[in-house]
């Protein structure tokens, strides 16, 4: 991980000097994570890909504004967050919460693909903010302070969103996961 960070820093330095190939290498390292984060957030593959492209273009154009290259990942996810929520705000009225109850069919023994679908369904029932907190913590492994930078809000708010989401997910998924064992 340390070696990877050093290399990213080197690529960022080259990209800042106008080396497009260095930037392409950087993109290739991060595009899958950014795409999956956006895919779970906006729930549409084409939208996720379009936003991914915008994210990397904006990142390139604003690379000189990145003060600390070691914070590239959280800075990049911050751009992705802004782009995604810019689109989500256009699609949904402000403050809409989409927490729905679990359905009865999500119980009993499940196979991996069914478990995966159940997880997908459970994530969809979270609000956008809650889902994003789960995506950043569980799937991207960010620390609370990094999430606070990405989402531009206090750690207490991050923890509140994440823990509420985890409670909802636990109620839905823990019985299913136990049945799948």
């Amino acid at each position, binding site marked *: 991980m340390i070696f990877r960070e050093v290399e990213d820093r080197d690529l960022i330095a080259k*990209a*800042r*000097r*106008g080396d*497009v190939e260095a*930037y*392409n290498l950087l*993109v*290739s390292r991060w*595009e*899958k*994570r950014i*795409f*999956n984060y956006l*895919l*779970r957030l906006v729930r549409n*593959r*084409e939208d996720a*890909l*379009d936003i*991914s*492209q*915008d994210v*990397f*273009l904006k990142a*390139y*154009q604003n*690379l*000189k504004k990145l003060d600390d290259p070691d914070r590239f990942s959280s800075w990049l996810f911050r751009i992705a967050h802004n782009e995604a929520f810019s689109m989500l705000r256009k699609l949904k009225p402000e403050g809409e919460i989409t927490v729905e109850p679990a359905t009865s069919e999500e119980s009993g023994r499940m196979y*991996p693909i069914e*478990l*995966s679908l*159940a*997880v*997908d369904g459970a*994530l969809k029932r979270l609000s956008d903010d809650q889902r994003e907190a*789960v995506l950043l*913590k*569980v*799937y991207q*492994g960010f*620390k*609370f302070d990094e999430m606070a930078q990405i989402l531009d809000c206090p750690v207490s708010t991050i*923890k509140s969103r*994440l*823990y509420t989401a*985890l409670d909802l*997910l*636990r109620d839905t*998924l*823990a019985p*299913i*996961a*136990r049945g*799948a064992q």
Partner: protein
Amino acid sequence: MRNCEEIDLKGFLFGEAEGAERERVSAHVRACPDCREEMERLQLTQMALGALREEEPPRRIAFVSDKIFEPRWWQRWLVPGPVAGFASAAVVAAAILAHGAMMRPATPQTPPSAVNAARIEQRLQEGFDGKLRAAIAQAVAEVRSQDKKERDDLLLAAEKHFSEQRRMDLAAFEINYENLYKRTALDRKIAYSSQQMGPAGDGVTQ
């Protein structure tokens, strides 16, 4: 033992607790049946969330430098290094998609100073289409030209052949005509001689 409300099981599970705090939570969970049960449910939740696999992006994202917009050598002298770098950065064309491609064109919302990826892709496509059309037109023209030449050669050969045939027919006709003329003249001479010789001559000619 600490109070259960003070124990951050979720933070512990997702790597926020470190050092002594981690040890404290761990000891509490071992000793507290309720927290142990809650930890087990959270671990099952974590395991379930892990069932969701990452997907590959349908198209790769890559950038190309657009030479048209890059600063000229004298502009590089006028502009300081990092700024020059970002001058070209501002004009870097966006995402053209490497493999798989071929789905609907992306429409990134880029600022006016940036070259839109879809436009670049469209421009490349138009350039490619133009070259393809020109190549096809040239190939068609070459084939047509070749066809015409072969047709002209055949026509010329046929005309030559018929001309030669006509010349030979004419020569044969002239020979036949001459022979016929000579034969007729001879016949007239014979007939005239027979008339001069009178009736006795008839017996000769019989």
